[in-house]
């Protein structure tokens, strides 16, 4: 065997080895990423029941938890993103005051999804309304269409993001119902953070779930029910 053949054989061996070293971690990561590949199920309808009687005026714990979880600044300038906010309302005729959190209502018939030109606004099979960050062109039509003012536009470059919650300048964003937690069996940060357990999260379609039982037994309303959007978030005590 000539020296040249040996050189070639060594070269091939080294190349295959180097390629294996280079590809293997990627393949492993790929298999990790593929591990949870089953999609959202349409048998599930995620929702929340918010008991306004238990929601304290001045308490902002749900908002703080949301900001921390999703990497939001927590500032409240008109150009800052607010995925959840506390609203104080006062009945004009009786003077009764109520405090409540407001966020994306995860409608069954979401106007934001209807108007989005590129299908970036979408509703998952389990009822969670999301924005595909790779498809959003930043036209803001969904913000015009949302009756709940639930969406924010990212006006500035973002730093220090939570890897589970990618955000991008020039795109629209809103409450994801902490989908990254739900997909690993958790619940939204706001629901977890509420000191009075005023936010009950669960599957509205599962009749044995706490939320479904409560929705059956207490009077609850959907905000702007007249629009017939069938939001997944309901309020008790309004």
């Amino acid at each position, binding site marked *: 065997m000539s020296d040249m053949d040996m050189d070639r054989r060594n070269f091939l061996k080294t190349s295959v080895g180097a390629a294996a070293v280079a590809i293997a971690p990627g393949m492993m990561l790929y298999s990790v990423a593929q591990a949870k590949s089953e999609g959202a199920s349409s048998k599930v309808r995620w929702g929340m029941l918010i008991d306004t009687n238990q929601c304290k005026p001045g308490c902002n714990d749900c908002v703080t938890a949301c900001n921390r979880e999703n990497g939001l600044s927590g500032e409240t300038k008109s150009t800052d993103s607010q995925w959840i906010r506390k609203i104080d*309302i006062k009945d004009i*005729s009786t003077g009764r005051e109520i405090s409540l959190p407001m966020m994306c209502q995860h409608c069954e018939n979401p106007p934001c999804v209807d*108007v989005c*030109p*590129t299908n970036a606004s979408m509703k998952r099979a389990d009822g969670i309304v999301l924005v595909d960050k790779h498809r959003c*062109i930043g036209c803001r039509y969904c*913000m015009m269409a949302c009756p709940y003012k639930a969406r924010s*536009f990212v006006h500035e470059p973002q730093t220090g993001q939570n890897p589970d919650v990618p955000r991008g300048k*020039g795109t629209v964003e809103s409450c994801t119902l902490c989908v990254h937690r739900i997909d690993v069996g958790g619940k939204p940060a706001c629901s977890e953070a509420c000191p009075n357990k005023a936010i009950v999260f669960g599957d509205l379609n599962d009749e044995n779930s706490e939320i479904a039982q409560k929705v059956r037994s207490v009077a609850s309303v959907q905000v702007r029910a007249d629009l017939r959007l069938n939001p997944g978030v309901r309020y008790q005590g309004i």
Partner: protein
Amino acid sequence: MIMSSTPTLESLHFKNRLYWLLLAIGGLVVAAGMYAVHLMEHHGHIITGMNNQIVWGMPHVFAIFLIVAASGVLNVASIGSVFGKAIYKARAPLASLLSIAMLVGGLTVLMLDLGRPDRIIVAATNYNLTSVFAWNVLLYSGMVGLVVVYLWTMMERRMNPYNKAAGIGVFVWRFVLTTGTGLIFAFLTARQAYGSALLPPMFIVLSFAWGMAVFHLVQTSIYMWNEKVIDSAILQRKKHLLGVFVLGSLYMVATYHLTNAYFSQQQGFERFILMDGGIYPSLFWWGYVLLGNIVPLALLYTPGIRRDRWAALAALLIILGGFALLYVFIIGGQAWPLNLFPGYEVTSTFADGQIAAYSPSIYEMLLGLGGLAIAFLITTVSVRVLNFMPQDKPYIAD
């Protein structure tokens, strides 16, 4: 000197220099607009006056004016091609050119205002069939294509037999297009300013007035440039048509506000936009109604005011009135808060229950003006290199 009836060598030199000066000015405005876009891309929309309450701002006022006027200016062409009126047919090429120029200008503004204009290919390849924006991507680009074909059937003699068919195609398409523009707002069910089936027809009639006004202004400029005087019979007919369109659009706007004012739930909004909303009622009454309608109507119809320059002034005022109306409609409509809890006083950190504040920044103004300048450049260059001067026959048959 330039108004002398026979062109001299001196006046031709002067006009040649003036032409290049106009191009330079237009080019500078476009360049300034592009620089503004670059800054908006770099820093984000934080450098504009737009925010999470006023999500559509000054660029949309410019873009929607240009797109609506681009549809309306084709009225001149339609009256010629579809209804066979000779003096309009002679003006159809110019009307088509203006339509293309304004569509391109308006679409450029709309596209460059996007948060991610670099993803235009996403918009071109993903169509959500329930989105009127997605329809409009097809309607606007289709309109440009159709008008180019229509121009071809007019300017290429062999294509003349297809002119009527192309004219009818354009006639139908532009109605659908302006309906599409009105539907952007008509489909917004939750906002009190919008969500009305009146909006598409209102935009169509507004397009007649604004398009005709743009046409008249450009036509007057071209006649002046060529040192010609428009035939007084033709001018008279044009003025009357413009007046009728202005009256028609005022009627539509009045109907929109009156129907709103009749519904108790809308009265708060109407009071805001027409009476105590600060800049919005001022722009509406002084800008749109008085300067954009009453004064132009007086200029068009007062006997004795026959000079074409007065009609051109009327056209300019109609255009400015159009901008005022769109500012009130688009910005004022968003400034009024969403009514989440009817019957309650509402406060929050996200401006719930409050009138939203907006002051346009220089960057979005430059973007809008850049769009206007693009339309201006397309028109100026085309009128210079091709024959768009209306050629009237000596005898007006109809």
